[in-house]
């Protein structure tokens, strides 16, 4: 399934002698100083137009910035090219930006700057993205420690067998109030000046329809009910028309990745539930697929079927809920959403019966799943699937032809797929613009290859097409579910080997991606051969899809910007991580 790395290396070396510094496993180490020209060549000449993942990793003597590029050309779709650049200087770490070549690098490079302190030369807007502006240090560097720091890796030694200082030592007792936050030296909140968060708008008063207006900056959020969580948009308005828009994220940030590096390999599975809490099953799926690829583990057939069943149920629920929220934002307050939640209840009942929890399932395991399901469960699942099938029809009757909806959504937020690819947009939003790109097809994982399903696409990528796209994809999921429920082996193991609590993963690094209901969810994992990940990065499709929000919203009304935000389908738990 891998790309022919030797051919790529040869081609790059002819075009840029000495461009490939080194070859490290499946990764090419490229020349840092010539990165922009090499990247342009990769995009224009070699077809790698889709940069989906930028991240970094901290090693003792250097920092690595890693990139994963893919191609949307039909003949080149599939596995992509992984390359990295090496930054030897930890103090003054600098890398040329690739934002000018792939706009999807914008938010991701900001995140790398925020977390690793790597300066991207030429980046248009290199500010912190997830942390606040006064934060000191770059937390994903290995020498940075959090206020609750105990040890580098779990299990912490103080838990067993002789914990010092027995009672009381609840978390608050161990780390007292005020000791649980870190401030820069000499920091006084009273005197702190945040400075201008956004540039002042130097536009003169203009007359529109006989009324004098001047540009206004409006903060939408962070507590606005239409923003799907704690999310802020700084919207520049001329009259009611959006002239520019800056998403401000990070209010829900908890440094998931630092926690992930402390955890045991399987200790991360329940944490992934807390990413996109609308479809936690699929987050687990993405993580275990990544770890299994590192381990080279095979999963028993029945477990694979159970995984697909759970994952596709999650997808249907996610799409129905998204449509429900979407209509909340359009002003059809509550009705479609409550209908979607009614269906979700039935699926959650199934999940609860199988896994033990309604939302934080913790069902997938490295090499299998947590528990087998009974025949009654499967029978009930069949009933739920046929019910969902009917309910999707009902949603169509309820909403698709609604004239108010059509007039509010046609042409709103439209964007060509070429531009979306440049912004790194993935998932239903990308497919609704006409590009048939589904990771279940182009880079199959699990047993998706054995199912018969289509990858629906629409033409314009506006809000209406995104709605129809989600309906169509939910139908395809139902199709997969029906096949899976028919073909699932009656008995069989659900776990490959022993379910060990301290899995050891061999040395190596990889970026693994799956088709999450919201887009491409990827995990970048580095292992040093131990029981804990050395580096654990989540390629959040919600955050990266947001990068296109400004381009989609400019020129539309403020009310439409909210609708466009809803149609991108974000969950703040994953955006902020």
């Amino acid at each position, binding site marked *: 399934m891998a790309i022919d790395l030797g051919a790529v290396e040869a081609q790059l070396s002819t075009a840029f002698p000495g461009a490939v510094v080194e070859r490290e496993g499946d990764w090419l180490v490229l020349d840092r100083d010539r990165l922009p020209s090499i990247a342009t060549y990769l995009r224009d000449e070699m077809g790698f137009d889709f940069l989906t993942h930028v991240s970094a990793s901290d090693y003792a003597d250097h920092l690595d910035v890693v990139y994963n590029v893919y191609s949307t050309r039909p003949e080149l779709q599939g596995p992509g090219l992984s390359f990295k650049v090496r930054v030897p200087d930890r103090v003054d770490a600098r890398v040329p930006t690739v934002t000018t070549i792939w706009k999807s690098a914008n938010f991701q490079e900001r995140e790398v700057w925020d977390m690793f302190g790597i300066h991207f030369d030429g980046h248009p807007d290199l500010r912190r993205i997830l942390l606040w502006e006064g934060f000191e240090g770059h937390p994903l560097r290995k020498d940075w420690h959090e206020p609750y720091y105990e040890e580098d890796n779990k299990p912490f030694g103080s838990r067993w067998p002789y914990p010092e200082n027995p009672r009381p030592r609840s978390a608050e007792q161990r780390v007292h109030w005020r000791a649980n936050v870190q401030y820069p030296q000499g920091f006084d909140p009273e005197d702190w000046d945040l400075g201008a968060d956004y540039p002042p708008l130097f536009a003169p008063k203009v007359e529109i329809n006989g009324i004098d207006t001047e540009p206004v900056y409006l903060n939408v959020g962070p507590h606005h009910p239409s923003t799907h969580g704690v999310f802020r948009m700084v919207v520049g308005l001329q009259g009611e028309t959006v002239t520019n828009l800056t998403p401000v994220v990070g209010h829900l940030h908890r440094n998931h990745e630092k926690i992930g590096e402390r955890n045991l390999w399987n200790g991360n599975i329940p944490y992934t539930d807390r990413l996109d809490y609308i479809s936690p099953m699929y987050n687990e799926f993405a993580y275990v697929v990544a770890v299994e690829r590192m381990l080279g583990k095979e999963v028993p057939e029945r477990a694979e079927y159970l995984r697909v069943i759970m994952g596709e149920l999650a997808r249907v629920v996610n799409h129905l809920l998204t449509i429900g929220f979407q209509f909340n934002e359009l002003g059809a307050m509550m009705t479609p959403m409550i209908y979607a939640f009614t269906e979700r209840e039935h699926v959650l009942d199934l999940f609860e019966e199988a896994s033990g929890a309604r939302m934080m399932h913790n069902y997938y395991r490295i090499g299998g799943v947590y528990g087998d399901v009974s025949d009654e469960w499967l029978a009930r699942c069949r009933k739920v699937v046929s019910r969902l099938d009917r309910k999707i029809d009902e949603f169509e009757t309820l909403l698709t*032809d609604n004239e108010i909806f*059509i007039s509010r959504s046609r042409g709103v937020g439209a964007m060509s797929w070429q531009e979306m690819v440049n912004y790194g947009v993935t998932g239903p939003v990308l497919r609704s613009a006409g590009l048939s790109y589904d990771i279940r097809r182009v880079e199959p994982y699990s047993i998706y290859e054995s199912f018969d399903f289509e990858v629906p696409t629409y033409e314009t990528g506006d809000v209406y097409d995104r709605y129809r796209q989600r309906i169509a994809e939910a139908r395809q999921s139902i199709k997969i579910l029906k096949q899976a429920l028919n073909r699932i082996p009656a008995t069989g193991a659900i776990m490959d080997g022993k379910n060990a*609590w301290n899995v050891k993963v061999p040395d190596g690094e990889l970026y693994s991606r799956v088709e999450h209901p919201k887009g491409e969810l990827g995990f970048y994992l580095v292992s040093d051969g131990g029981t804990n990940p050395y580096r654990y990065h989540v390629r959040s499709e919600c955050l990266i899809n947001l990068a296109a929000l400004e381009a989609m919203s400019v020129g539309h009304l403020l009310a439409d910007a909210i609708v466009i935000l809803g149609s991108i389908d974000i969950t703040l738990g994953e955006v902020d991580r």
Partner: protein
Amino acid sequence: MFGFGLIKGLSVTMRHFIESFVYDRKPWEWFTVDRYDNKWLERHQAVDGKGIFTIQYPEQKRKVPERFRFLPMLVYEETPEEPRCTACGICARVCPPQCIYIERATDDRGRPKAQPSGFWIDAVICMSCGYCAEYCPFDAIKMNQEHETPTTDRDRDMFLDMDHLLVPIQYYAKLHPSDYEAEEAARRAKEEAKRRAAEKRAEKD
């Protein structure tokens, strides 16, 4: 026709509106079926249930499935002084948020004993993942289903010690009957095998 799509959609809303009433108690059940009756709840929660309904919490509660988990508990067989737990520490080490603290007991001569002298769980930190119960080799820690635990004193009531955590085996058998049955069957099979092996050895001698 312009507006037809809207009317078509409204017919769905109307149907839901009517179904919510019709599918609720039938007229002849108005005096016999109580709104807080579980029969009514089951009817709505069934997969072919229709309309929208509300569970009248706290008078009425959802029945939770057997695998439902909330906080961990420690199981003892005869007396609380002798829990199944051997203080091996796997639960404390596998716990993702590291909320379990175990103190291993020592005998008179100061050697470690296979028993805990202290066992604490920081219930506020616990993320209810169930790993402790899943990886316990002695079936000593299990997941409780008691989920109504609000309190005003975090340190007293949410930092659980052995007094809070220990439950008799019968309680566990009631919460997770099929898990309990499977464990007991495995245990019996193991004992049977041991007994047979011992018999064989006795015969040989």
